[in-house]
């Protein structure tokens, strides 16, 4: 096999890549009582996946990714409350609104790098959170957005009390988003993002329009995060100010780091384990559970630099 074929082959779908989907479908039947948690997990996976494009592939260190999650959630929520309860157009509204905010803020902040960029991503989130708080006539402010009423999907599949429809809905959306993200990271565009992460100076020197590429991926990731936010708004039929908070931005970074950055599946592993750990720890130790999350993170970062998937890699290679 020529080296070219060997590299192209890496882009082909491997059997192991179907594992998350088998687990997700199996989970639907095995944990019928936990489907609302399952939907939350799927949403956080999508959110983490969008962050991975920015942080893991393009190397943009951000602590403001919840801005886009929040904009997507509010846009879809307000659309449902004021315009139409149709869910698919609601997702589109969430994606477009978040993508637009991603593009607009990216135009300004992606001129900077490193610490300055990190600060600016935080600032954008803070601005939006404060704006959502002030604009209580549309957002409901601190009380949250009420009256989010979602119609059945295709006019047929009603959102039920047990969260069955919601789970399947989230799963299908996540699957499509994953197909898209997978295609993207294996494309020439995706490779150029890795190039930017690996060596910015050299990308400039080979004539790459670096800032345009960064803006493109930032916008795409923002739109995907917006879809995740829209899913949350639709499946919980509520939007609160926490969707835009720092805490959510931080948490999603933690989830991704847990799983492994820049490998597409870190989002799946990290978000799932984090959400389950949070659920279980909060039950066992309601006052103190965040301590255990912190401890786990310290251990992972110290002893397993590539997250759980990085750890697995090393075990398999041995």
């Amino acid at each position: 096999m020529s080296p070219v074929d060997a590299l192209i082959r890496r882009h082909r779908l491997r059997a192991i890549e179907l594992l998350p989907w088998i687990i997700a479908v199996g989970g639907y039947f095995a944990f019928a009582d936990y489907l609302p948690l399952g939907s939350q997990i799927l949403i956080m996976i999508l959110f983490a996946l969008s962050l991975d494009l920015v942080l893991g592939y393009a190397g943009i260190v951000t602590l403001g990714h919840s801005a886009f999650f929040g904009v997507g959630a509010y846009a879809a929520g307000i659309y449902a409350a004021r315009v139409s309860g149709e869910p698919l157009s609601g997702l589109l509204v969430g994606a477009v609104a978040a993508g637009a905010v991603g593009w607009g803020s990216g135009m300004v902040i992606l001129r900077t790098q490193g610490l300055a960029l990190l600060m600016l991503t935080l600032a954008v989130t803070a601005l939006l959170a404060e704006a959502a708080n002030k604009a209580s006539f549309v957002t409901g402010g601190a009380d949250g957005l009420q009256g989010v009423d979602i119609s059945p999907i295709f006019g047929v599949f009603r959102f039920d009390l047990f969260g069955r429809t919601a789970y399947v809905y989230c799963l299908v959306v996540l699957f499509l988003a994953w197909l898209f993200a997978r295609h993207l990271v294996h494309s020439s565009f995706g490779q150029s993002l890795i190039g930017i992460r690996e060596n910015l100076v050299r990308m400039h020197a080979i004539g790459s329009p670096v800032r345009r590429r960064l803006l493109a991926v930032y916008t795409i990731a923002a739109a995907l995060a917006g879809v995740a936010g829209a899913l949350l708004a639709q499946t919980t039929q509520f939007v609160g100010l926490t969707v835009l908070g720092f805490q959510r931005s931080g948490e999603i970074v933690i989830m991704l780091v847990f799983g492994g950055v820049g490998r597409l599946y870190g989002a799946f592993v990290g978000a799932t384990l984090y959400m389950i750990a949070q659920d279980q720890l909060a039950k066992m130790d309601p006052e103190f559970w965040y301590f255990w999350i912190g401890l786990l993170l310290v251990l992972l970062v110290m002893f397993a630099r590539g997250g759980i998937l990085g750890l697995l890699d090393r075990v398999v290679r041995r």
Partner: protein
Amino acid sequence: MMPALETVGLHKRFGALVVANDINFSLEPGARHALIGPNGAGKTTFINLISGRLPPSAGHVLLGGRDVTLLPQAARVRRGLGRTFQINTLFRGLSVLENVALAVAEREGRGGDMFRSASSRRGALEQAYALLQRLRFAEDALTRVQELPYGKQRLVEIAIALGLRPSVLLLDEPAAGVPSAESATIVEMIEQLPPDIAVLIIEHDMELVFRLARRITVLVQGRVLVEGAPAEIAADARVREVYLGERQHG
């Protein structure tokens, strides 16, 4: 013949420090030209001014007769300007083949392709591989750059630049940090560059300079001291003074 690269009155100041002082320089197509000078003479600054990493304080840069002074780096690369770096500036986590393919994809304007992924990736990889074969570097195609010995990493520096199919190639100390005994493969690679590329080499290793260059420019304190054929430069009393003087100081 129109020069492949020309600078007219190129000037660069950092505060009170003048690092490029009225440099008039021209590089013919197919040239093998060396730029030498003591440390701090402004050689790398000169490369950065030509490639667009630094804006000049005054003067012009012309590529193939067109003024590119105001163009950003990427636009100059599209007009045929390739460069390497004195300090390895590579995609360390990627294989040699992928390193070169990134440059090929950008040259073909396909670096931003999101949707025709398979065909555009294959095209760039195959061209990159053919280049590596020509450079007799194909056996390392799948090795990650960070796992290569340092001397071979220096070759990747050049291979990436060649992936751009430049008409002007700026080599910033291609053998920097490589022991003289091991620099033979680097010299070989440079000797086998396509004859129509105009090559400007910055180098400290005089043996290498006199082996590769057909013309030499000596830069001292940001100013061109003298330009001429290697024999003239070797015989020039001022060059000896600057150069041997420096060597004695260490």
